[in-house]
């Protein structure tokens, strides 16, 4: 395409999108029972706030976010909570489909904090696959000026047609959702990046763009090539900007959102409807009615596939996500989550097991397709040898796990599997080395909590004394002079360190979604305890001072 720049490498796998993009987007039947897992987003699992026997409506909060990087969870059908355990909540439906919506917001007029609060309350997370909580992502403006919002509609993985169908049916609403985020983040431009294999979606977007847009939106159609839907790859291709290694798109003034997420944002803001359903591509040769459906979260995969005409004897495996980056489902009883964008019910002829691996002959094919310009053949060698120093120096953590290298490997080596294993081994090592640090942070947290409790006790005591003093109207002259200024400074410092801890946590969580966040959440909690204590002390000191002055 004329106005597109380029990233290195890339491959052209068979697309196989026709199987699911020929029928219209429809609603899946209302499930009679749903299972909502507590972890359907990056960060920490949500904490249940319902008990078995509670009745819920569609949109009732059933689990609250835990820590900063986490997300609320809502009931996706109305009925009764039947089971709550450590990982999931089950709801038996009453078939009524009664809703509990939040009040609609006119996004053009409300304050940013109200919008952020709405995103938080609606449990919106990125629906493209990573599941990063949207309200945290939106707070990026506190640290970075955002210039451009990119709507990532490239959808480069084979089979998946979620964005395609979402845009064909809801182009106007997706663009309105983009306007909300652009306003919230102060972006001056919006760019839609879409591959040229989705002509109907492009047509729908062009039509929608003929309506006036408050913030200008540009449609950029790019040639189809995997993995142009990778955030960094798309930004390079649309804007010719390189997101720094270990950095975020925000570092170059860009924010990326998936069309499905933008639609969910609009529903949450305009209609007060929390995230209780999503579009899922049902495809593969083992079902007779492939297509895209609006599915309530928690619906069982088996039920969905059976409704789509599952041919069980033909079924070889079900893959959640695309064939390049997705994962095979171990059981069909797994529920749909916020992260389920595609279910491929594949026959054995369609996606056969790989042939036996043979030795790497260092042909370098992998190098020529790597979209990050890494040396996969060398990483392979060092991953097998567990040479961790070399792995880091050959930039293992820059790997986006797109699978292009494994795809072209003539020796059928599962390269990305090796890299994932190496990465998790290295992450574990980092945690080991950080253990002492973590213990220190735990100690600091405890100290902070004790200090806060002490401050609270003190405040209560003072309040009691003040009450006792007032009737008698006698003032005990305070011997020590109140250091109001010092407390104000301490309070400001505590506030700043909360901000800093939040910033670090949000950054770490986005940079490496698989990184363990416990330690960072702990540091944030410590800072918050310190802030509470400082607030109490400050309030108390002010009280004392005003009472001295009034005497």
């Amino acid at each position: 395409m004329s106005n597109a720049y380029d990233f290195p490498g890339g491959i052209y796998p068979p697309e196989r999108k026709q199987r699911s993009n020929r029928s219209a987007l429809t609603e899946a039947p209302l499930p009679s029972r749903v299972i909502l897992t507590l972890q359907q987003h990056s960060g920490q699992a949500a904490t249940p706030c319902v008990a078995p026997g509670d009745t819920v409506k569609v949109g009732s909060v059933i689990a609250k976010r835990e820590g900063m990087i986490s997300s609320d969870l809502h009931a996706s059908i109305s009925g009764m909570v039947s089971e709550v355990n450590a990982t999931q909540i089950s709801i038996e439906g009453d078939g009524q489909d009664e809703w509990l919506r939040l009040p609609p917001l006119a996004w053009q007029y409300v304050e940013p904090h109200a919008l952020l609060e709405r995103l938080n309350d609606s449990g919106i997370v990125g629906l493209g696959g990573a599941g990063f909580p949207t309200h945290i992502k939106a707070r990026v403006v506190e640290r970075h000026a955002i210039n451009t919002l990119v709507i990532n509609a490239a959808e480069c993985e084979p089979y998946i047609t979620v964005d395609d169908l979402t845009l064909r049916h809801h182009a106007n609403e997706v663009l309105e959702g983009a306007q909300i985020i652009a306003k919230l983040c102060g972006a001056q431009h919006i760019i839609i990046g879409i591959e040229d294999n989705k002509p109907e979606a492009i047509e729908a977007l062009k039509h929608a763009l003929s309506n006036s847009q408050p913030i200008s939106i540009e449609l950029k159609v790019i040639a189809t090539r995997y993995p142009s839907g990778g955030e960094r790859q798309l930004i390079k291709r649309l804007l010719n900007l390189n997101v720094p290694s270990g950095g975020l798109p925000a570092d170059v003034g860009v924010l990326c959102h998936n069309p499905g997420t933008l639609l969910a944002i609009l529903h949450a803001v305009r209609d007060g409807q929390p995230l209780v359903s999503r579009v899922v591509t049902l495809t593969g040769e083992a079902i007779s009615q492939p297509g895209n459906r609006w599915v309530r979260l928690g619906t069982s995969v088996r039920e969905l596939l059976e409704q789509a005409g599952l041919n069980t004897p033909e079924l070889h495996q079900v893959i959640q996500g695309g064939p390049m980056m997705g994962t095979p489902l171990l059981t069909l009883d797994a529920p749909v989550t916020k992260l389920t964008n595609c279910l491929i019910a594949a026959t054995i002829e369609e996606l056969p097991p790989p042939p036996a691996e043979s030795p790497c002959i260092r042909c370098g094919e992998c190098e020529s397709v790597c979209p990050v310009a890494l040396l996969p053949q060398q990483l392979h060698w060092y991953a097998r040898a567990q040479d961790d120093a070399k792995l880091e120096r050959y930039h293992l953590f820059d790997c986006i796990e797109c699978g292009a290298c494994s795809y072209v490997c003539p020796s059928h080596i599962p390269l990305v599997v090796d890299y994932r294993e190496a990465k998790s081994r290295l992450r574990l090592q980092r945690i080991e080395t950080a253990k002492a640090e973590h213990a220190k942070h735990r100690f600091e947290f405890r100290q902070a909590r004790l200090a806060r409790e002490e401050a609270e006790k003190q405040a209560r005591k003072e309040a009691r004394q003040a009450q006792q003093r007032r009737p008698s109207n006698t003032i005990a002259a305070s011997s020590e002079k109140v250091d109001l200024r010092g407390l104000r400074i301490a309070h400001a410092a505590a506030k700043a360190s909360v901000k800093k801890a939040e910033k670090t946590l949000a950054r770490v969580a986005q940079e490496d979604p698989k990184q363990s966040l416990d330690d960072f959440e702990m540091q944030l909690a410590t800072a918050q305890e310190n802030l509470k204590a400082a607030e109490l002390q400050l309030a108390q000191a002010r009280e004392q001072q005003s009472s001295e002055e009034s005497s």
Partner: protein
Amino acid sequence: MSMMRASGVKDAMTATSVPPTASLMRWVIAATLPGIATMSYFFGLGVISNVVIAAVFGVALEAAVLWLRKRPIRVTLNDSSALLTGVLLGASLPPASPWWLIGVGMIAAIVVAKQLYGGLGHNPFNPAMVGYALLLVSFPTYMTLWAPPQALIPNGLWAQIAGTLPTAQLDSLSGATPLDAFKHKGEAVLASEFWATNPLPDGTLSAWRWVALAWLAGGVLLLVKRVISWHIPIAMLGSVLLLATLFYLSDPSHFASPLFHLLTGATLFGAFFIATDPVSAATSQRGKLIYGAGIGALIIIIRTVGGYPDAVAFAVLLMNLCVPLLDLYSVPRPTGHPNTSSGERP
């Protein structure tokens, strides 16, 4: 896990992707056929006997070592790499080499250079060239016995292959390769004078040129089929031409012309079939360029200043030695890394 399916997609749609390792090897073998056929046409069936004997030795030795190492034999032989090593070494030897000579070369190639280092993918040196270099150093008489162009079945062919031909008769068969003749023309003889004496038997030079062009044809096939990448052959031929031109321009009366270097000896064969062995070559694209250029430079330096008339084997082996260093210092800068040297030095 997910890569299971990535490969799965690939196998269902092989048209879009690179052939698997075994078929890469078979493509290389197929691409040697024009060269081998042309050589046989000019130098007799001794060329084919070389290739066949070496290939049989290659497969048998590989099977034997795999058996000793308790590794799967059938699956491993199926990758055709031992067969390829045999074909390449066979094609490098003087026509109708005795069977035991080929056997010794293949033991060095398959047993020592390849399997003792761990088999396919683990050998730091090009196996065929290790075999060739060993033979050249150990049996110089046999290795320089390159007959002039001759009939398809020359006299004494079978006895020669069987190793029963008396040494006295061997000498009568021998001729000189053009590189050989030029190398030993003597310091005092000017290039123009040398060629004026008609130093080679009739048709020798043109035979070598035809053979070189046949290797080139095979090489182009490999490039078109994307079996090899262009980096090593282009860098190697480029540096051969550049250095040969520099030498030639500095003193045309003493040094051979660039075209002579390109079209005689093993230059083109080496560029497309030997230097491109991915296992023992540098692996990154930048590394391959340096690696190829290094081989080209060493070829010209050894040919003009060193002691051997042709130098592909030694040039390749010397550059094999440099591969770990090249790999270390030719790491590309991944996208998103600042454009400083720190990002390039692992």
